[in-house]
């Protein structure tokens, strides 16, 4: 198996605050990894650090063998677009939508590289097959959409790219249980090809049995490290943390 993502000794945080403490993590191609942790324990920070969006960070992050981390102490997001162009797709918490723009604008904006922009119609079609409810809403501004539809737009925008690593931050956040279940089921069916997917989630039962392996994150430290962790042992961890 090829490593898509290799994180070594990653610490990151905001201002004087250290959120992540020397994290090691490897994700292999074809894998779907669930990252389980409670609010405020560093799930989002880990995903944002990989995308270069934290205030500062140190340690190594390699995407397909290319260094995207290193020590950095200022200017959050300065390199994010470059990392994204190297094959990262982060679907952030809160969706980061462009309010006022239409659904089709959002999907097109996901096809940012010159080559994907040319085949954006075909890519849009593929995303619409994954999220059929968006088909009727293509011309609607995203402000008019429901929470579930907005999440679909955010995920769909992320899926428009030719990414080798998909980072998905709490796809179930703020949605009705039945909707979040179906969204996660859809995400777990997507053909990853050579790529990999990392899903951060608060709710263990949402991911149990659907992903290749589960990792726990607690107080900025990964539980289980880079090794696979059985759902059973995580269960104990999650309920203890609760």
């Amino acid at each position, binding site marked *: 198996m090829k490593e898509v993502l290799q994180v070594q000794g990653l610490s990151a945080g905001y201002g004087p605050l250290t959120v992540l403490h020397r994290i090691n993590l490897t994700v292999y191609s074809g894998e779907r990894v669930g990252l389980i942790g409670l609010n405020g324990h560093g799930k989002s920070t880990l995903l944002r650090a990989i*995308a270069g*969006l934290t205030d500062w960070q140190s340690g190594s992050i390699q995407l397909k063998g290319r260094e995207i981390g290193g020590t950095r102490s*200022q*200017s*959050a*997001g*300065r390199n*994010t*677009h*470059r990392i*994204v*162009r190297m094959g990262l797709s*982060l679907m*952030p918490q809160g969706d*980061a*939508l*462009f*309010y*006022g*723009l239409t659904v089709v*604008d959002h999907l*097109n*904006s*996901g096809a*940012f*590289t010159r080559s994907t*922009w040319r085949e954006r119609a075909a890519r849009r079609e593929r995303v619409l097959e994954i999220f059929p409810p968006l088909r009727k809403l293509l011309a609607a*501004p995203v*402000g*008019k959409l429901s929470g579930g539809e907005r999440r679909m737009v955010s995920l769909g*925008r992320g899926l428009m*790219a030719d990414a080798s690593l998909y980072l998905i931050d709490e796809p179930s956040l703020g949605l009705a249980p039945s909707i979040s279940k179906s969204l996660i089921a859809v995400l777990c069916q997507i053909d990853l090809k050579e790529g990999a997917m990392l899903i951060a989630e608060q709710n263990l039962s949402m991911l149990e049995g659907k992903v290749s392996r589960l990792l726990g994150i607690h107080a900025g430290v990964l539980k289980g490290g880079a090794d696979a962790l059985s759902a059973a042992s995580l269960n104990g961890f999650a309920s203890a943390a609760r």
Partner: protein
Amino acid sequence: MQIDPYYVIVTAAMLASIYGLLAIGISIIWSSLGLINMAHGLIFALAGYGAWAAAQYLSAYGPVVLVAGIIAGALVGMLIGVLAFLPLYDKPNYVLRSLIATLAISLLGQQFMLTAFGPRSRPLPPVFGRASFHFGTAVVSAGQLGAIVTSWLVLALIAAWARHSRRGLEIRAMMRNPEGAALVGIGLRSTAMAVMAVTGGLAGLAAVLLSQTYFVSPFSGLTPLLKGMIVALAGGLGSIPGAIIAAVLVGLIEALTAVSIGGQFVLITQFLFIIIVLLIRPRGIAGIIETVRE
């Protein structure tokens, strides 16, 4: 006193097109770069000098002068981007610092123009010829007609470009959510420079068009900056349709005020209009026309 409706229409259309070109630039810069560009008037004045220099040393042929003004405007816009946006945008208190930076650039630029070109006003050669037309009871010069037609044509082109091109989508995305834009691979710095070039080009076009009736001088950018700024505010900063509607209304008010109670009251009525708009709709005219907003 008798008000000539044709004269009012021509004057209002002329003013609206100039204000529209400037206000849209200010509005786009604010919403995509978060920069209140106090040097927008400087772009206007320097582009006027660029066009004048082209007419003087290159060729007085209309299109050459027009293109020279646009290119000069785009270059000055990018220079402001290099000086006031790139070094500051990721620093704390960016909005205030960049406001001060553009103000400083504007003052320095004015002194530069005074030193380099002298206080004397310079005329531009007529770009659209010297013919004049009759519109009802009013006489329209070729310069005025050309200015109105050209600016609305360019505005339509810009709107279509923003809607359908990849660069346009990048700019619109950045206007709405810079972090979301970075997450889809849009480079903030390069997109910002594109924004400065396009809006600078618009200001340069406005400079050449207005100089068909006025002169180019070191301080000729001051009034356009002020008017462009209030039109952008009344339209709702960040809204292109809002800015266009506000430009038409403000132009109409200026023309009506000038013919009915006198030109010295123009600023008073314009500011009254903007105060009333902002009292009713704090987000400007965009607050009325946009149905969804988050």
